[in-house]
């Protein structure tokens, strides 16, 4: 059960409209799953729901992490359990440097300063990861993603190019060391060089303790990040699952055949 994410018959609506119509998926540590499907099929809804975005209302089914339902948990509580979502459109937070944000985030997820009494009397700021340790780790991970250290003093996602945003997402993943990582269209907006760097970054994080769900429209990302399982997503459901060959088949045939086979 350790590190396992189970999605059971999950049904989700957004603003009264049902988007996910019974999704079943289990991701064990060490596994890389790819979720492919045409635009508008509900892939991103699944990603947001796993992370707990308040706009997405679960109307049926369950999501279990390590055997327990996480549906009642807020996004930060899910993050602390080891769930991570690399977003398709990371939002800008002007005035907050990437470094300051990451230090607060890493400290929160790793539980720095947790032991200080009832948590109300400790002075603010004492709950942060020691600066020296943080800088060292940040430097290592930025080097891994071929990011210049000066990038850390830029404001979070503010004026970042598409490629910079995606790299910053993977940097966060590297720093937060999740047990389950969902990558939502991480390849979108990347040129081939950036794609390779981001994929290399992800690959260096993949290991026996990490389960990954790669959500993508295109097969090309899967040339770099090798999935163990591929699922085809259509109209709020997984309609077919298989191995890497399924991705190649999609690449060849496109998505039209699905419409023909599963109705337009």
């Amino acid at each position, binding site marked *: 059960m350790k590190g396992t994410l189970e999605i059971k018959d999950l049904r989700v609506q957004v603003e009264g409209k049902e988007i996910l119509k019974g999704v079943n998926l289990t991701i064990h540590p060490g596994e890389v799953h790819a979720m492919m499907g045409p635009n508008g099929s509900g892939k991103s809804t699944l990603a947001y729901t796993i*992370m*707990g*975005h*308040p*706009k997405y209302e679960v109307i049926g089914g369950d999501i279990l992490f390590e055997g327990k339902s996480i549906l009642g948990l*807020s*996004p*930060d509580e*899910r*993050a*602390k359990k080891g769930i*991570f*979502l690399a*977003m398709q459109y*990371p*939002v800008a*937070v*002007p*005035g*907050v440097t990437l470094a300051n*944000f990451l230090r*607060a*985030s*890493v400290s*929160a*997820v790793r539980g720095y300063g947790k032991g200080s009494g009832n948590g*109300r*009397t*400790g*002075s*603010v*700021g*004492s709950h942060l990861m020691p600066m020296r340790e943080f800088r060292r780790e940040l430097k290592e991970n930025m080097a891994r993603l071929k990011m210049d250290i000066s990038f850390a003093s830029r*404001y*979070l996602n503010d004026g970042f190019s598409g490629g910079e945003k995606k790299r910053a997402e993977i940097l*966060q993943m590297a720093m*937060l060391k999740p047990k389950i990582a969902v990558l939502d269209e991480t390849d979108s907006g990347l040129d081939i060089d950036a794609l390779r760097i981001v994929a290399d970054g992800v690959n260096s994080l993949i290991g026996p303790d990490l389960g990954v769900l790669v959500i993508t429209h295109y097969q090309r990302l899967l040339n770099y990040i090798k999935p163990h399982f591929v699922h085809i997503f259509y109209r709020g459901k997984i309609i077919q699952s298989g191995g890497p060959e399924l991705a190649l088949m999609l690449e060849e045939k496109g998505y039209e055949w699905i419409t023909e086979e599963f109705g337009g």
Partner: protein
Amino acid sequence: MADTQNFEELRRLKEEYRYDFKTEADYVYKAPPGINEEVVREMSALKNEPEWMLEFRLKALETFLKMPMPTWGPDLSNIDFESFIYYLKPTEQQAHSWDEVPEAIKETFDRLGIPEAERKFLAGVGAQFESEAVYHSLKQEWERQGIIFVDTDTAVQEYPELVRKYIGTLVPINDNKFAALNSAFWSGGSFVYVPAGVQVAIPLQAYFRINAQSIGQFERTIIIAEEGSKVHYIEGCTAPQYTTASLHTGVIEIFVGKGAYVRYTTIQNWSNNIYNLVTQRSIVDEEGTMEWVDGNIGSKVTMKYPAVVLKGRKAHGEVLSIAFAGDGQHQDAGAKAIHLAPETTSIITSKSISKGLGRSSYRGLVKINKGAKDAKSKVVCDALLLDEHSRSDTYPYMEINEDDVAVEHEATVSKISEDQLFYLMSRGLSEGEASAMIVNGFIEPFVKELPMEYAVELNRLVQLQMEGSVG
């Protein structure tokens, strides 16, 4: 190198200051409540003031009684002038003992990690600086350069001609009702004189001033920067200031000489029972620069519009301000830029945050007189609303009487978006932490102008204010 050395020295001195508080020997004078001439006469006599100062006060009192209450701003109808005590020895106007200080304020001190001794000073529990050695060391350095930095009462005694030359010339006693009130009952405040060509390397802080009455109810501050001089003055602090009086009315007059530079930084965090009604004005000669850096966190109602009067050619003025209005607070803050001469420039940047039922307003005036050719002014107002019920208003007034000018005004109102919150929360930050981070980002352009220690304290304060505030 010398600057660094000085700076280290000052830091050390300040540390000494912090831990060298003494409870003042009590001597008591307490006027009866209410406004009357007897109180003015008595306080002037107790202060041993010259005749002209008494005349100034009496004339101000007369003016105050005649002037109507302003009706254009926040609701002031609850102010009962007869209920206040207008003259107290400093110890009297503060809480008498630590026990009288409200729990909420004590808790905030706790969480800001403010040392015990400093807390008592901030809470106004009769502590004052009394380290003669430290004071002398600072004073010697200032004297060597010809700088005067004393409280304004002392200035009246020691430099009466200088005070007389400047007081009330920029903010006349009939400027507004509260300026009149201050002129009648003022006590304390800083008097700063910087001679021509002298550049004060280290900011002058009211904190350093011996026997500082910086928690004064009616402080009067005068800063004179002669030609080519440079000075940064810092007043106030980010920790909550508690006083039993519920009206604070300050007047600040700043005279910036030709080519001189003055920055005045202040952050007020009065407890939320206080009406904070302050008149801050500066006049700037040719090629001089005045910068107001103004933070308003506390109080019940604040009315404060730092002004730059750009009198000489190429004079430059800036006002950078933030206001944080929480539940029950109304921050009515803004700025005035008056362009009297050609090629004068001004920049006004106002950032406000409203939380809960809080209300913040930007009220500003840009005035360009006939003849102020090629004047330029830029006003940027950004408001951030944290809740559905919070409120923000903008009242930008412009009076442009010259054709060849460039005036810009930009205003934005934004809310913390669900997507921003979700993004930060998905990285492990609680809702309160995430909101605080967004707010701190919003005020970053202000915070980065503050001395380091203030910046850190202000960020912490926002964090405290934001905890559990959203959702």
